[in-house]
């Protein structure tokens, strides 16, 4: 019934169905990240969540963002995560003592964050239907980054640089 209404409103039904399926998989994977008893499995479930985000980007015709998501998060960040886990605690099977004492505090924080993001998105877009204009060309994206969004772009790079230097200073013992 709902799908019928969407179809009459010029909404791409297949896209919405795919969005729902991927979102369900992502929610399941996200819950598994915090419930599994093995650190490596948790990291792999997180990979699943990030891959789901990439899939959602593809659905939204943002292929450059999708590929960047795979490259940066799945290809670099998570590989480093796993690498760190393997160097320190590469135990196979269930582990005990993974839960932090204050784990229950995480639930309200997560709910507040979810509420905030949901409110922002609904407030900004409401019931708008995105125009069907196809994928944004990569050239356009880079033009935006290097012209009007140049300052935030450089600021974020600077923060990342500071984080990298900070990590080295903290980790260096000699």
């Amino acid at each position, binding site marked *: 019934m709902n799908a019928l209404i969407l179809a009459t409103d010029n909404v791409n039904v297949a896209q919405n169905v795919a969005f729902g399926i991927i979102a369900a998989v992502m929610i399941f994977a996200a819950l598994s990240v915090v419930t599994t008893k093995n650190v*490596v499995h948790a990291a792999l479930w997180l990979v699943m969540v990030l891959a789901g985000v990439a899939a959602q980007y593809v659905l939204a*015709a943002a292929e450059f963002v999708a590929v960047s998501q795979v490259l940066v998060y799945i290809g670099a960040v998570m590989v480093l995560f*796993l690498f760190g886990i393997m160097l320190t605690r590469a135990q196979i099977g269930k582990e005990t003592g993974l839960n932090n004492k204050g784990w229950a505090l995480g639930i309200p924080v997560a709910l507040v964050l979810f509420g905030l993001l949901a409110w922002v998105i609904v407030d900004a877009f409401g019931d708008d239907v995105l125009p069907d204009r*196809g994928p944004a060309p990569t050239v356009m994206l880079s033009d935006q980054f290097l012209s009007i969004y140049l300052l935030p772009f450089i600021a974020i790079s600077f923060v990342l640089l500071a984080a990298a230097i900070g990590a080295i200073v903290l980790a260096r013992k000699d």
Partner: protein
Amino acid sequence: MLALDPILEGPLLWTPLFIIIGKVLFIFVVGLVATMFMVWYERKVVSGMQNRIGPNKAGPFGMLQTLADGIKSFFKEDLLPTRADRIVFRLAPFLAFVPAFLLWAVIPLGGDFSNGNDGTVTWFGHVTRVQLADPPVGILWVLAMSSIGVYGIMLAGWSSGSKYPLLGSVRASAQMISYEAALGLSLAAVLLSSGTLSTAGIVAGQNSLVDWNVISTGIVPFVIFLIAVTAELNRPPFDLVEAEQELVGGFNTEYSGIRFALFFLSEFMNVVTMSAIMVTLFLGGPQPLFDIPVIPGALEGTIWFLVKLFAFLYLFVWLRATLPRLRYDQLMDLGWKVLIPISLGWFLLLAALREFSPDGDAAESLRVVVISFVVAVIATGLFAAALKVSARNRAAANQPADNTGVTV
């Protein structure tokens, strides 16, 4: 519709659908046959270089040896170590194998690119390309898939539940992460000169010999890319991942039967696909050097592609037969202290040349190069001075917590 292929423009009919399914099947078969061939070719060429005969029993010149090995590994017992993580242990071979296959999708395998043609061909009245898909982010797809391939090796080592595989996979992931940076930076030089991310676009931009990226980016990115790819592929002289003398067999020690075969095949398939990517990026892919008479243009592209591909396949085998393995610290030094600074510096130099000497005027280009060189020398001097100061500070303080001079 994403701009993957000209065939997808317009209504989706049966003929385009069959053409695409045909292409998928073709790429699957070509991938497998090329891998089988590569295994045989490597064994044969290496044996020739070592004054042996090599495989010569199964089929003409032993060409069916790989097929025989494959059938053997299908029927072997498939062991699952007691301490292994069952699900991940079974998943890992596929994580290595599937991305290797998916890479084939974006490589232009042929088509008429000569004289400024755009490389499209007409099959059954439909305009298409001799490649499965030409996404606007093609070359990033290559990087993404090769970074997913790392997971197969890492997880295989971890899930085996034994130390040698774990050590092998830690080595492998460290090596692959380190060299991916140099790989990406030398790739950026190509993208700077091509101005597009689509593989077909990169090939179409390399119209004549001087436009081939190997020359137009000035050979250095090509050499760095070649070295970094060899390290990414874990091939000699960078095969520390499965150094037999130190690690028994590396990450795949506990694997047997068909799962081991999947790792083995993906390794050799990666050699072929990475060679194809180097041909596409630097040597113009299906671009002809000269016009072969009689043969039609589209087929000619495939022939040129294969000729260039073979040059790289031979090069990889040759490297394996001649070079000794690097020590681990040498490997890391080469990656971080040599390849990354050079590729980054070269990229900046190319960008400066493009900005300040856009029409390639000799005097202006020379001025840009000299200024860049001076800047590089000053930067290196400052960096060396900073290192020296921090070393002196550390020696003076002589206690662990002092980090005032670290300026990395």
